[in-house]
């Protein structure tokens, strides 16, 4: 236990990075995922094809492979940024595919008459989506989004293997320095992940109640 208490600052530093990775990638994935969902329901076939291909390809690729392609692939074409940013990019790319599916199914849950009515008063595709369909879809998007973002929180741990000092790497460092307290350190890290996930779940369930139609 001492190894945990003596090194709380290392844990805090690691989990701060875990949290910031999660929040940035969540924001990125929300934007990219919504765009992809919009493309999937758009009237322009090439956009639909692209978004479908993206979602299928990314969803069926292990996250570690996505990390590999981003961290070691992008430099091959001259893109070199910090490993932290690469991690945000990899997590965003990956999570966006799941967000896109959640948003798309939310869109499909809105009666088609809503979109027709919107188009018939002269609103464009993007106005229809933004002002009429998505606000109504939102209540149906929030529940799956909660599980996607909790998965994202846990997925940030992959970044430990790609040069980012986050919670799992903090845990690893402590394990190395304190070979006698391995189980206590792992248990502490697991508990911290669990607490963060429960916190996220609680926030989402409040949000869910707030957006549920009367």
């Amino acid at each position: 236990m001492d190894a945990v208490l003596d090194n709380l600052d290392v844990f805090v530093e690691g989990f701060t990075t875990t949290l910031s990775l999660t929040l940035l990638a969540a924001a990125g994935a929300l934007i990219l995922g919504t765009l992809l969902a919009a493309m999937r329901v758009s009237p322009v076939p090439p956009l639909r094809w692209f978004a479908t291909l993206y979602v299928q390809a990314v969803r069926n690729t292990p996250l570690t492979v996505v990390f590999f392609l981003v961290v070691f692939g992008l430099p091959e074409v001259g893109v070199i940024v910090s490993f932290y940013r690469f991690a945000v990019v990899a997590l965003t790319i990956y999570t966006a595919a799941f967000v896109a599916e959640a948003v798309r199914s939310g869109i499909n849950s809105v009666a088609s008459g809503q979109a027709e009515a919107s188009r018939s008063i002269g609103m464009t595709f993007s106005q229809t989506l933004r002002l009429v369909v998505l606000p109504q879809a939102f209540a149906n998007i929030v529940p799956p989004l909660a599980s996607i973002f909790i998965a994202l929180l846990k997925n940030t741990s992959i970044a430990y293997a790609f040069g980012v000092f986050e919670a799992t790497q903090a845990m690893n460092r402590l394990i190395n320095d304190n070979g006698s307290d391995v189980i206590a350190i792992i248990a502490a890290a697991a508990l911290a992940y669990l607490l963060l996930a429960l916190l996220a779940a609680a926030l989402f369930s409040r949000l869910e109640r707030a957006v549920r139609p009367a």
Partner: protein
Amino acid sequence: MAEPLVVLEGVNKHFGPLHVLKDIDLTVDRGEVVVVIGPSGSGKSTLCRTINRLESVDSGRITIDGKPLPEEGKELAQLRAQVGMVFQSFNLFAHKTVLQNVTLGPMKVLGKKKADAETRGRELLERVGIANQADKYPAQLSGGQQQRVAIARALAMDPKVMLFDEPTSALDPEMINEVLDVMTSLATGGMTMVVVTHEMGFARRAANRVVFMDEGSIVESSVPKQFFTSPSSDRAKDFLSKILTH
């Protein structure tokens, strides 16, 4: 002098193997009220929906006020803003209040200021008789009230023509008249209208012309009095005998 506003020429449309519109030619003049009737499955709803391109056509030409319907995009959206549409199932925006339903289009499409849009919106709600419900949500209204809001929403765009796709078919009988009354007053006020309906009373009272469709074709097109007293085709006679007996 009649001035054509909506013109369909040689319009064909298929749903898979089903030929739902067969060589449709139809001209609606400015200020004219055309009622489209026919048995279900005759293609009359589809016809109505092709006019603002909610349904695309396979061949033929549709013009509104001299302009052919453009492909999906900004231009089409602008044109749709000039064509009001009222649906069988109302399709009010469920997440907006009655007033917001009526002001959304004017603000977002026509770029009106909120205050102006609301003033005009309240006027229109007054006109359709539901000014006191402005702040309610659609789900809190009866079907007849919802449909009247839908009419006000379409009118708020100051359309050149109004399309009605079976506007009373989803209503309880006691609410049908409140909607038909609004439509009749619109017709009397000179609005150009294309109305798909089963309400023969409305057709007699308000239509300038009745178009009878069957199996995807326009079978007959004449003034109401002539159509209802001496239809020229057998199919129209048969149809009328079925619906007028009860």
